[in-house]
């Protein structure tokens, strides 16, 4: 799900075009909540997203942003007629908003997945559940991210 040219790469290219020469392509330190909304729009299209049915479990305080355990679940009977098709996870302040997309289906039996993610800052994580009837549901969770003491050089 990568944008072809990010806004920042475009600006850097434009600056170079203006003869500013040695402008270094800026890597975004972090994306914005608006970029997250755009990424969510790409998934849901014009459909509404309703809060509910999705449960997002994250520790409220993370010892290290490099490894934050995450569990996401969606209430669903997981039958062929009525099941979760996918779960999408987003962040608002990581360098890019997309974290992971899980593609499920009735064969999983239970819509519950765990993984470990990276969080660049204290921020809110959003999970969107996509059901077989085309509806979208969401949940959010806020995580405070602390930094390790005593790092190595670079």
């Amino acid at each position, binding site marked *: 799900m990568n944008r072809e040219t990010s806004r920042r790469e475009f600006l850097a290219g434009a600056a170079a075009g203006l003869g500013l020469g040695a402008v270094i392509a800026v890597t975004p330190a972090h994306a914005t909540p608006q970029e997250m909304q755009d990424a969510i729009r790409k998934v849901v299209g014009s459909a509404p997203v309703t809060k509910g049915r999705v449960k997002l479990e994250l520790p409220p305080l993370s010892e290290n942003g490099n490894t934050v355990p995450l569990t996401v679940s969606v209430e669903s009977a997981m039958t062929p007629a009525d099941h979760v098709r996918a779960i999408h996870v987003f962040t608002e302040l990581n*360098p890019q908003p997309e*974290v992971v997309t899980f*593609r499920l289906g009735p*064969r*999983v*039996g239970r819509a519950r997945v765990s*993984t470990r993610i990276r969080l660049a800052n204290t921020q809110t994580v959003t999970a969107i559940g996509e059901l077989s009837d085309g509806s979208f549901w969401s949940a959010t969770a806020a995580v405070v991210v602390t930094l390790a003491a005593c790092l190595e050089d670079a």
Partner: protein
Amino acid sequence: MANALINVPDRTRRGEIVEIKTLISHPMETGYRRSQIGARIPRDIIRLFVCTYNGTEVFRAELHPAITANPFFVFSTVATESGTLTFQWTGDNGFSVTETAAITVD
């Protein structure tokens, strides 16, 4: 050389929901880090993880750099019949690892 840890109950009953845990070694280099001289370290991540059960896909994960190094997933599948669970990870720089686990369903 990547190695993987897979945890699947080897024996279960038909209709049971079994929990599967997978852990694979991979640095998941985000592409956002810079070296000491300021050069960007290129992205090198696993992009896709697929689990198939006797040839039918039952679970898939599309990964982005925000998945931690040594990606770990816990998911489930309904035990339908005895056979083989296949796990495949693919990613940047031609990364491709396939592992299997047998499952016996009574």
